[in-house]
């Protein structure tokens, strides 16, 4: 059975034929992209339907987020969001809440909307907008219902008395001097670990986790994705995650495929040598199913968390003189990279600061000297800070970039004032230069670090507007064409799927994202508000309500 999809315009991302008006599909694969009148040779003597439901829409290649974390998302998504930034979620937009009174009002509204006994988990609090939080403030909402208010950074939380008794935390056991302020109900750093260990029955319970993954499935669909990358499979527990992912993200009702990239150091943790990793990772391929597949990819880590100012920075470093941190000793990172490089893997390295990037570039240079490889796909993930000179090295070494461009929107103002100064803060996510250098460059959400909305990532990359409405690093803006490449064909290259998706041409899977407006011709500021009416995954239409 053949289906001919007609559209107001088809954006192909195939540079040899950028635009068309129709796509002909058979059994989930594209037979031809172009004009209907030229497709007659395929249609003669065949049964076919002409599908006009997108006749006034724009068909794009299916969007791809090459780096997010379904398992993290599964934990977060069952919670209620009260955030300073906008989050578009399938069950409703989360409108920005930017002052303390509005935060309290929203807590009240959530409290009144829930059955009496249900604990209320809230995520997204940030003192910069929402003022100081404490237990008494939560008690004004309720001193009966367990309420947990989680910081946007995930590094601290507040609980009221009912929540503490639910979790079995006895205030009398908590002595002063700990990273717990029991009077304020505040748990941070290792105190947070103490709290989480006791909240786990609520946040990591199998049924909660499954519910979280079901929500993630909706989020991914809602964002217009047809492919995603899980860029640290096994971050909690490889077997448990693989089982849950198979249950929730495989099956005819799942409108996207997932590239699973295993967490390299977790894989060999517990006394296995890094050199055993490549064989262990290759063994995972036998678990592959239609939508869930490991490839010869591995994820490794260089420097610390961007949101916590633990990125390792070159001189002149941070204004307050603190240093970032390494997630593994440079020698250990090199040893892991060497093992996978020589085994022919595509290596994805988490890098946040320009010193973390410099180290990883030095290691990549060594690998190229030891065993030159072409088309190796070595990818710098997150790519917070960089220098122009490093862009040249990335190009020369044949590597690619997957940037969390959303950092620029949410963090560049505060990093300019209380991190590293305006010059470097405004140039975070230096991706215009990457495009200019001809480096394969994509953008990602790292969901839940940023919203899983490719159009939103595109909006940030094109406009480079901070949350205080300042244009940051205008010279690094992408064109709309580049930004769309970033979330389609370039992302497909990054997760090793460019042979089957990422653009629309004969022979690829029929993966579309169907838009109300043209993302290449619209007002750049309107990009993130373009309506997504449906996705098509391997020829099957999944409407977005």
């Amino acid at each position, binding site marked *: 059975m053949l289906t001919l999809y007609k559209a107001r315009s088809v954006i192909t991302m195939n540079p040899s034929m950028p635009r068309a008006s129709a796509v002909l599909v058979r059994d989930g694969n594209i037979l031809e992209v172009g004009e209907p009148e030229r497709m007659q040779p395929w249609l003669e003597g065949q049964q076919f339907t002409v599908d006009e439901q997108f006749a006034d829409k724009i068909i794009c290649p299916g969007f791809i987020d090459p780096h997010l974390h379904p398992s993290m998302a599964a934990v977060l998504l069952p919670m209620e969001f009260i955030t300073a930034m906008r989050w578009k979620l399938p069950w409703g937009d989360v409108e920005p809440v930017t002052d303390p009174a509005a935060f309290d009002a929203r807590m009240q509204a959530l409290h009144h909307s829930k059955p009496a006994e249900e604990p209320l988990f809230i995520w997204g609090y940030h003192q910069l907008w929402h003022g100081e939080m404490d237990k008494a403030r939560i008690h004004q909402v309720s001193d009966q219902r367990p309420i947990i208010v989680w910081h946007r950074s995930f590094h601290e939380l507040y609980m009221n008395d009912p929540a503490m008794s639910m979790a079995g935390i006895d205030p009398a056991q908590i*002595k002063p001097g700990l990273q717990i302020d029991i009077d304020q109900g505040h748990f941070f750093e290792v105190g947070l*670990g103490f709290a989480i260990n006791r909240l786990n029955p609520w946040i990591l319970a199998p049924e909660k986790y499954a519910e979280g993954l079901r929500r993630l499935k909706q989020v991914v669909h809602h964002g217009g994705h047809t492919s995603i990358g899980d860029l640290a499979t096994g971050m909690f527990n490889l077997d448990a995650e693989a089982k849950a992912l198979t249950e929730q993200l495989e099956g005819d009702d799942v409108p996207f495929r997932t590239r699973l990239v295993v967490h390299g150091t977790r894989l060999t*943790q517990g006394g296995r040598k890094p050199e055993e990793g490549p064989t262990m990772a290759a063994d995972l391929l036998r678990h592959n199913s239609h939508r869930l597949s490991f490839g010869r990819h591995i994820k490794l880590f260089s420097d610390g968390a961007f949101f916590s100012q633990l990125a390792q920075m070159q001189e002149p470093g941070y204004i307050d003189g603190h*240093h970032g941190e390494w997630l593994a000793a440079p020698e250990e990172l090199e040893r892991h990279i060497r093992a996978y490089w020589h085994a022919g893997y595509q290596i994805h390295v988490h890098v946040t600061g320009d010193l973390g990037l410099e180290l990883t570039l030095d290691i990549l240079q060594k690998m190229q000297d030891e065993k030159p490889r072409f088309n190796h796909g070595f990818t710098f993930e997150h790519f917070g800070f960089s220098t122009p000179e490093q862009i040249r090295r990335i190009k020369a070494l044949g590597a690619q970039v997957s940037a969390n461009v959303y950092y620029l929107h949410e963090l560049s103002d505060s990093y300019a004032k209380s991190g590293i100064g305006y010059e470097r803060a405004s140039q975070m996510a230096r991706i215009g230069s990457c495009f200019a250098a001809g480096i394969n460059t994509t953008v990602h959400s790292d969901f839940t670090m940023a919203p899983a909305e490719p159009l939103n990532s595109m909006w940030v990359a094109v406009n480079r507007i901070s949350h205080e409405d300042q244009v940051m690093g205008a010279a690094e803006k992408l064109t709309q064409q580049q930004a769309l490449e970033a979330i389609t064909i370039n992302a497909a290259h990054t997760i090793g799927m460019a042979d089957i998706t990422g653009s629309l041409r004969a022979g690829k899977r029929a993966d579309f994202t169907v838009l109300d407006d043209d993302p290449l011709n619209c007002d750049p500021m309107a990009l993130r508000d373009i309506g997504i009416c449906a996705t098509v995954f391997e020829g099957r239409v999944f409407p977005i309500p």
Partner: protein
Amino acid sequence: MSNSAVSSDSIPITLIGGYLGVGKTTLINKLLSHPGLPPGTAVLVNDFGDINIDESLIRSESDDGTVIGLSNGCICCSISDDLSKALDALREIPVKHVILETSGVAEPLRVWRHCHYPGFIPKAAVVLVDASKHAKRSQDKYVGSLVRAQVEQAHLLVLSKTDLNPGFELNRLTPQLSNQDPDLIDTLLGWRHIDETSEIAPSSSLQPAFRTYTWHQAQDITQALLTDVLSTLDESVHRVKGLVATGDAGLLLINRVGDSLNMHCYPQSAQPEHLGLVFICRSSSSHEMHSAASGLGTSSIASQIARLDAGN
């Protein structure tokens, strides 16, 4: 570093830190096989690399101690952290003392803060320094600042691989031992950091076996005075180390172990950051404990230090 959480039912944690490859695993293996390892000692090892703890030395829970593997990472990236999980697990078994091996890239102070966990209390941060690699590593582009921070944040430094670089000296007023020291393990197990400015009376379960006194030199003294002071110390003084400026003999590197006193000339061109002496004392006597708690009140060391300050 508040000491206000000290209470007799808190389990003390001794941190073993230092960069990758400095000998932490060797030291922990030594600890595990040490006859003086008190019953109920749990060892938490960093499990990020392919660390090779001697399996035969790992004791089961029914035995004297227990070894638990940890890995590194950020709570925001894993909704958990191994240290708090491990500490919660230890609450279930009778444990009296915890030895915690930090990751090679950890700053001791950050881990120290994490040891203020319900039911636990940090006791001392011991940092190993590789005598053969420290000089180069502390200038390294990537880990130089980290390695320097590890040394600065230590309460007790253990110099390893001194056989590869016998002349190695670390100019810091932090107590230093060699990993060849026969008393190393006992010293380490008994070590407790006490904030010199604090006036907290040590509780019985945390009584340190060793105390240190630090003399920061403010003005030149004579070699004669120095020799006299160092020769008339109380027998509880186990070791003295430091660098002292004298008016008549220049910079002197001091190393006193037991009764044996060594003084060497130090190049005048060196401009050391730290001048002074560190005294390591056994604090088993009640007299010593009393003076420790009252801030150097009446001990003989205190009077000797006063002589050094007065310059006569």
